[in-house]
């Protein structure tokens, strides 16, 4: 089952590597990864998506929590949550791709005779579907932000 883990870590050198390294070390996979400083910039919020059973996720959450630089870990998938992913795509001008991206809050950033740069965002399952249907034809390059998300309702993850 897919899991979205939100992790608050100290914004210190090497902190990110400790979290990322741990997944490999303990035999878990990272599907997507996003990180950036938040609030006063003294700490960062990471969002990691991974796959595993209930037990796997319990273990990985506990292990992440043990990392000294980790302040808090929360499994968004445990309850209702919002989750989105942002992508940017450069492609040879194609009505089809343009249309797919338009349906996902698409925005044009650059347009010239042969190519276009567009961005789009949506739930990661919508993004997956879109990427599949875009296929390879006319696609030049693609960048994904990885999932980010928040708990629904009153629940917040902060220090």
């Amino acid at each position, binding site marked *: 089952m897919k899991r979205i883990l939100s992790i608050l870590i100290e914004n210190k050198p090497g902190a990110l590597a400790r979290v990322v390294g741990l997944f490999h*070390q303990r035999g878990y996979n990272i599907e997507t990864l996003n990180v950036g400083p938040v609030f006063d910039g003294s700490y960062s919020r990471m969002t990691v998506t991974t796959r595993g059973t209930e037990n796997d996720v319990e273990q990985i959450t506990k292990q992440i929590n043990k990392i*000294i630089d980790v*302040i808090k870990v929360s499994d968004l998938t445990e309850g209702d949550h919002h989750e989105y992913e942002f992508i940017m795509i450069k492609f040879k001008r194609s009505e089809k791709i343009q249309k797919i991206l338009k349906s996902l809050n698409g925005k044009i950033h650059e347009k010239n005779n042969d190519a276009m740069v567009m961005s789009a965002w949506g739930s990661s399952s919508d993004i997956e579907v879109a990427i599949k249907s875009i296929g390879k034809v006319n696609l030049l390059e693609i960048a994904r932000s990885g999932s980010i998300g928040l708990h629904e309702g009153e629940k917040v993850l902060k220090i």
Partner: protein
Amino acid sequence: MKLSGGDLLMRALKDEGVKFIFGYPGGAALHIYDSIFKQKAFEHILVRHEQGATHAADGYSRATGKPGVALVTSGPGATNAITGLATAYMDSIPLIVISGQVQSHLIGTDSFQETDMIGISRPIVKHSFIVQNTQDIPRIVQEAFHIATTGRPGPVVIDIPKDKTDPSNLYEYKRAKEISLRSYQPRIFPHPGQIKKACKKILSSERPVIYAGGGVILGNAHKELVSLNKLLKAPVTNTLMGLGAYPAKDKYFMGMLGMHGTYQANMAMHNADVIIAIGARFDDRITNTPSMFAPNAKIVHVDVDPASISKIINADIPIVGQVKESLAALIKEIKRSKIKIDSEALDNWNLQISKWREKHGLDHDLYLSKIKSAMIAPQVVVQELYHATQGNAFVTSDVGQHQMFVAQYYHFNKPRRWINSGGLGTMGFGLPAAMGVKLAFPKHEVVCVTGEGSIQMCIQELSTCLQYNLPIKIININNEALGMVRQWQDMNYGGRHSASTYSDSLPDFVKLAESYGHIGMKVTKQSQLKKTLEKAFSMKDRLVFIDVYVDPNEHVYPMLVAPNGSMKDMWITKNTKA
């Protein structure tokens, strides 16, 4: 007064109460070494290989309960410390490794003796620091000691680029009154609700077993463990790391459990209805096949590390907290509880365990029956050692059959007396660890029981022992082979001894010990064993290396049947399965 980075480090270590530093100098650590030269708070012990420094600091820590400190230079010095870090990490030992690093502006340029110490040590440390500002050194040292020694202890690396200890840059020394890290607050007290549940479960059991591990020793909770069992009167087993946590002479003690555990301990685990796991982590050397583990047992699991709970075996009642505080709470609750344990059922259970012990228990009088045998049995060496030291020695060990024989036959009645690399199984640990112990306890007998394979992995430390006059007794159980490897080859590979023997190329250990300035003794006959040990132990101020040639065909039994076995499936002798 303002101090250089090196002097700040000295002050900080002094304020942590450090008495010994085990180290080896080199370019990136030279400013630090100059500061060491000028201070008097602690003694620096010059080892002969950085692995020795880490194991010695580790041994010091295991024996004293205080953190051990090692100092190495960058590059090869740092990489030589890796095995010691991993050893300490696996056994949760508070070890501080300070490594010199190349100058900050050279980092990342493949400069001379540059290694990314933070990177290569990352998976085997509890935490690590790289010094970016000299004035942070006191804070970093304080945090490092705090992290290493609290919660589930573990090793911490402090990597210091050479420019941060430059003697021409001076800073004020500041020490915080208290350390508090927002991202690190290990739990101390257990949840009262869990204690209540555990108490109820334990007191309504008929076949309880206490399974206590190294966490009891690390958490200084051996007294609480004994008090707990004064109330319960349940059979107790210790893991390899837990030996000494519960007194071996106690009538409820069943010996070690697991791979080479006693028949009664393994049978008790398999047939228990409640297992009280305390500071133990259900290692694969204990459980055998996890899906076949203790099929009828409910598990109460006490541990300071929540990640150890339900990792391998699901805990029915998890208790997260320091072992000492958790046991104290449990004792209180049991005393207060109205439930009385079914003493008839418990008597029957203890009787059953005696029957198992009689049937296939270890023969602790082997030294009597083997007195006339031609070859020396390795088990008898341990028994004679036990008698020669009245069971009071600190015993360090290496890895292999000899290690298991000590665990089985030397009765540890006190915690911190049995010092071995359980988790990583590091050959080469025993001698340097014994140095750390001997420095901490100069008046006590410190014995390293090793094998002719293992001892050669850190043999160079004999030179350190001479320099600092460390009269350790080394008992080399010489079976002329990598005995444990050969045992597996005998059992699983049709007796094909691939790369496990070298009898025609062993050194003359007596001469070797003598060339290092020590005393060497060789024993080949059973009749010489006792006298030689007595003679060696009478030489109080000399290191004696006793090379004991033993029966090379001995195996360690019991041994759990694997794969696809449970804890009740054991080899009892070469040809019999129980």
